[in-house]
């Protein structure tokens, strides 16, 4: 299929349709409103459902209701909106319903700003809502990967019967890049008759289904959380995705970086290489499950003297990097937030400072 030039937000909307998702609920927020503006035109052409909810709080539950009724469904938002959806995300995780959430991250905390940021790493990876749950979180580094991850998100959400998040940022949402929509990433929805509240007649059953998250019996609640934990363990085995850039050299420094920030790091690594300095980058594509073993092994390479996590935040993923490196190498951090993305020159200076 030929490539087309598309804005990230619009490409994410198209990717959902190509993946077989025909239901979208959302509330406007910069810098991702183009997803809704695109889908309000495209979904009717596909016989799909578009609804602008009255708030992100309500949208979270529209997603919950639609998912529990057995249909593929997506919403997109940006940081403050995702905070408001945090309640529903916790319920959806507890009730084990598949759903796709896209966060085109902007600066925070509070109203923050509308420029790109990675300040929602903790929210995406460590919680956001209350209780013992995780999201499967994928972080694209450009429009093409955003398309592919969005398309994969629906089958992953169904495989694990839980919420999946695409964590992009304002740059990925706003920039245009040539993209293609791989046909082989389109999947058929799984049969959900054993749990979905799609009406007993729909599944020719006399047995009703119940979607809930209340377990007053402590043993039952513990069992439900153990079931969630088992899914996260399976994700750690089967879904870890990452890229090791310039990893076959005797690199002296290992950068850990993801998303938009990793693109700048890539440029810095190429320029350092020309100057005779080898630096590698471990780029997590899944933020949860985190590439724990890969980070450890890449950091422990004999030639590697130091690790540095470079992020568009005040230091969030670096905590996971430190956890994985287990003290075997010094772990540094550099980050900027507020919307300014560190330049390659800045990163080169920082790296040289480590040597």
């Amino acid at each position, binding site marked *: 299929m030929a490539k087309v030039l598309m804005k990230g937000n619009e490409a994410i909307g198209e990717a959902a349709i190509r993946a077989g998702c025909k*239901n979208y*609920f959302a509330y406007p927020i910069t810098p991702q409103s183009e997803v809704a503006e695109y889908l309000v035109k495209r979904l009717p052409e596909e016989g799909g*459902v578009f*609804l602008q*909810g*009255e*708030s992100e*709080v*309500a*949208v*979270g*539950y*529209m*997603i*919950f*209701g*639609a*998912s*529990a*009724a*057995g*249909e593929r*469904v997506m919403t997109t938002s940006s940081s403050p909106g995702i905070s408001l959806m945090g*309640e*529903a995300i916790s*319920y959806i995780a507890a*009730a084990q319903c598949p759903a796709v959430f896209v966060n085109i991250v902007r600066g925070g905390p509070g109203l923050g700003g509308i420029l790109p940021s990675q300040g929602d790493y903790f929210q995406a990876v460590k919680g956001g809502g209350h209780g013992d749950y995780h999201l499967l979180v994928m972080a694209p580094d450009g429009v093409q990967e955003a398309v592919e991850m969005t398309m994969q998100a629906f089958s992953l959400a169904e495989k694990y019967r839980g919420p999946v998040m695409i964590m992009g940022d304002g740059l990925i949402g706003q920039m245009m890049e040539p993209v293609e929509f791989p046909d082989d990433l389109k999947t058929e929805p799984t049969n959900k008759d054993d749990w979905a*509240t*799609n*009406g*007993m*007649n*729909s599944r020719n059953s006399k047995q*009703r*289904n*119940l*979607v*809930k*998250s*209340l377990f007053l019996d402590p043993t039952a609640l513990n069992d439900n959380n153990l079931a969630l934990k088992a899914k996260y363990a399976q994700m750690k085995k089967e879904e870890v995705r990452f890229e090791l850039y310039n990893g076959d050299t005797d690199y002296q420094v290992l950068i850990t970086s993801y998303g938009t920030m990793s693109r700048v790091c890539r440029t810095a690594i190429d320029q350092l290489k020309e100057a005779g300095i080898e630096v590698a980058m471990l780029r997590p594509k899944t933020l949860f499950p985190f590439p724990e073993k890969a980070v450890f092994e890449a950091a422990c390479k004999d030639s590697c003297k130091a690790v540095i996590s470079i992020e568009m935040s005040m230091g969030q993923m670096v905590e996971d990097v430190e956890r994985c490196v287990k003290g075997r190498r010094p772990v540094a951090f550099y980050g900027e937030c507020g919307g300014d993305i560190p330049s390659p020159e800045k990163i080169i200076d920082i790296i040289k400072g480590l040597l």
Partner: protein
Amino acid sequence: MGKTFTTPKALSKTHTHYCPGCTHGIVHRLVAEAIDDLGIQGKTVGIAPVGCAVLAYNYFDCDFQEAAHGRAPAMATGIKRVRPDLMVFTYQGDGDLASIGMGEIIHAANRGEKFTTIFINNAIYGMTGGQMAPTTMGGQRATTAPAGRNTADTGMPLRMANLLGELVTPGYITRQAVLKPQQVNKAKKAIKQAFQYQMEDRCFSFVEVVSTCPTNWGMTPLDALKWAEETLLPYYELGDYKVPEEIDS
């Protein structure tokens, strides 16, 4: 003489956890009878609130989802939009619907979402132990209004049917009660009518039911019925607040 009364098929054959004298049981039965009468058990999805009726799904024999506090109308919107062929109802109390869920109910009603809401107004929070609700009457005692609700400080009780009746969007908005047998019969008709409007894909339908909470009112069941009749009904007037226009058949 044939059988004149039986347990509705849409009700589970189990005991409820509701307190003696609570009217939830009556309203559950009315909803189940409407589901039976219309033959829609196999395509009905109920949504339980947070509150005393959170366990309503244990008493109905149809698909059920459990919402977060106040969010049932948003969940119902999600279901109904993606599966318009299903019959969807929310069952909510006054803390759930009139306090934390005010935004969700107003907007669902205003969009004319084609589901049915059963709203239990007993003028108090039940499950959390008798706190003041938006529907608590002036002077009525609650654990968070021990001297009685001071309306100068907390505003006047919210009249949800009146409020939703003011929306310009077409809908079926009615207030009923279950304090006397005649009222129960009328409430049953209203609930069935609400489901019928949904079946016909006509409009949002909302049945407020003035109910009792003897436990948290600190009354015997009989005194509670009397108090509701004398205190709630003059303020929460029964009747239709909006009906959809007749369609020529």
